[in-house]
């Protein structure tokens, strides 16, 4: 702390620099602002506007107003679609629990664990389209699963997941769980790497068993990572499965695997109802915001530095 004030010349220079810095900051952020504003924020505002109209994309849109939402939620088809989304949430505990176990195994750092980590993460690089095509063969009538069952002498159990509504959704959910293993395992492995070894050692010295250490020491410390993976998993379940549905089931049978995100596509592009399509998109957006705000609050509370 200098007791002497800056000489006037230097202070002036500081001021000029600060102004230049602010200007440079503004100029450098303009491209990002333009891109995001033009292609993400403007369309979401438009979507809200479209959602309250009856519009096929060609003729003049007919204004309906907010009552469009009321009639949408009263529509049994929409409810069926939302039910599919809700059912898909049943996959989330598995999509988190299985990777948690796998991460715990990897964290034992048994010989070759780095190799296995790479292997488990590999499917993350593969498109949902490719995953969906193999999954289709896995669940097919004459597919891998039935072959496997026959091979282990359970040929009497013949599955045909994709033939009926709820089982098709289950097939989709199982594929989804498999696809999330890589991402979530890495998240948990990262979390486990942050655990303080001295704390674990202290617990061991205190006579806690491996299992007790996992449940009483490690798991509570991993809460933040579990919450993060929960958000990622829910967001993926609701907004990343388009390709999988497109390839595996096309939304069927019936409405069996039509989730909200797929419904947007069907309404907008298969049936040409831009208004209702936009409306379903807005509903999806609101759900995402609710999930996302939770995450934002998590990040903020951990950092303590709000931005």
């Amino acid at each position, binding site marked *: 702390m200098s007791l002497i004030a800056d000489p006037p010349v230097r202070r002036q220079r500081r001021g000029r620099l600060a102004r*230049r*810095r*602010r200007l*440079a*900051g*503004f100029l*450098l*952020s303009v*491209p*990002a*602002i333009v*891109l*995001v504003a*033009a*292609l*993400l924020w*403007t*369309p979401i505002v*438009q*979507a809200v506007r*479209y959602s309250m109209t009856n519009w096929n994309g060609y003729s003049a849109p007919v204004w309906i107003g907010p009552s469009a939402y009321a009639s949408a939620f009263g529509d049994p088809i929409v409810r069926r679609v939302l039910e599919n989304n809700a059912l898909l949430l049943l996959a989330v505990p598995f999509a988190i629990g299985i990777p948690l176990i796998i991460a715990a195994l990897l964290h034992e750092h*048994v010989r*070759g*664990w780095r190799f*296995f980590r790479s292997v*488990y993460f*590999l*499917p*993350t*690089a*593969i*498109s949902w*389209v*490719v995953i969906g*095509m*193999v999954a289709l*063969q896995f669940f097919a009538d004459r597919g891998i699963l039935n072959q496997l069952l026959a091979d282990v002498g359970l040929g009497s159990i013949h599955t045909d997941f994709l033939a009926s509504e709820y089982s098709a959704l289950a097939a989709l959910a199982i594929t989804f769980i498999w696809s999330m*293993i*890589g991402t979530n395992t*890495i*998240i948990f492995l*990262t979390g486990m790497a942050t655990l303080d070894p001295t704390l674990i050692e202290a617990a061991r010295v205190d006579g806690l068993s491996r299992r007790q250490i996992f449940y009483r020491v490690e798991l509570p410390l991993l809460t933040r990572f579990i919450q993060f993976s929960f958000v990622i998993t829910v967001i993926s379940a609701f907004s990343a499965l*388009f*390709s999988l549905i*497109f*390839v595996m089931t*096309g939304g069927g049978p019936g409405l069996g695997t039509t989730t*909200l995100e797929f419904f*947007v*596509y069907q309404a907008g*592009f298969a049936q040409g109802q*831009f208004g209702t399509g*936009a409306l379903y*998109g807005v509903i*999806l*957006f609101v759900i*995402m915001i609710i999930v*996302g705000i939770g995450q934002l609050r998590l990040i903020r509370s951990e*950092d303590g530095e709000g*931005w």
Partner: protein
Amino acid sequence: MTAAPAPSAHSAHSAPSAPGSVPSAPGSPGSPGPAVSRWQSARFRRRVFAIVIFAAMVVIAIVMLYPFWYMGDNSFRNQGQFDQQSGHSLAGWTQLFQTLPVVQELVSSTIVCAAAIAIILLVATTAGFAFAKLRYRGSGLVFLLIIAAMMVPLQSIIIPEYVNLARFNLMSSYTGAILVYAALGAPFATFLMATYYRGISDELIEAAVMDGLSYERTFLRIALPLSLPAIATVTVLQFIQIWDDLLVGYLFLPTNDRTITVGLAVLSSGRTTGIPPLMAGSLVSAIPAIIVYLIFQRYLIRGLTLGMGK
């Protein structure tokens, strides 16, 4: 396991107790016997434990790798061989190249990826640096608005996006899809770059400016080279994202400019193409992503963990 007396130094190393005790604990002459056997059983148990874990990891590896094996195996079959699940031939591959313009679609994928990533890097590095080091009035709010755009699911804006791109006639070439991919990737990339630039010391930046560099040049000459690891992370993350995407390419690219992922999905949804060529196509589309993954794995993982706000 025969009873070989263990060197006491090892036992002190592996035994959980004995805090600060000197190796070969003196005092009780009767203790070496039970101590050794306990050490052995602990080692034995740990060994068994390790083997069980290893076996479990092998099983999981098989589950994770099976699809790749399945694709490879069944791409080398014709329809008859596929139905019988026996015999191999090149039929799947020749059929693939007859039904799908593979090379052209790979070129399209490459062009779209490269252009979109270039735009993402341009806006994310500049904006990330600005939000981290060159704050101005309201920059915090702008940053928050850009980050928040990560929460916009593509499906929520797909219809207005379609209308807008059609209005500006951007769907007859790569342009529309490239712009949409760039916009979708920009928020997270900006977040990542800003997080990275925050780690660079203010003194370094100020020193460069005091030496007479403009802030823009300081960014180009000093911050940008320092941020190459973060740039690599963004590139790898976005490459895989865009290469693997279906919806944007499917809706916004003209049929002749389809990417390999889109081409494959459309071929598959037609339900008229046999499985072997589809498996061959799957491999073709997966291989570039796998190669990038294998080379740049750690950047991908870093991107994921950075996303946790760490």
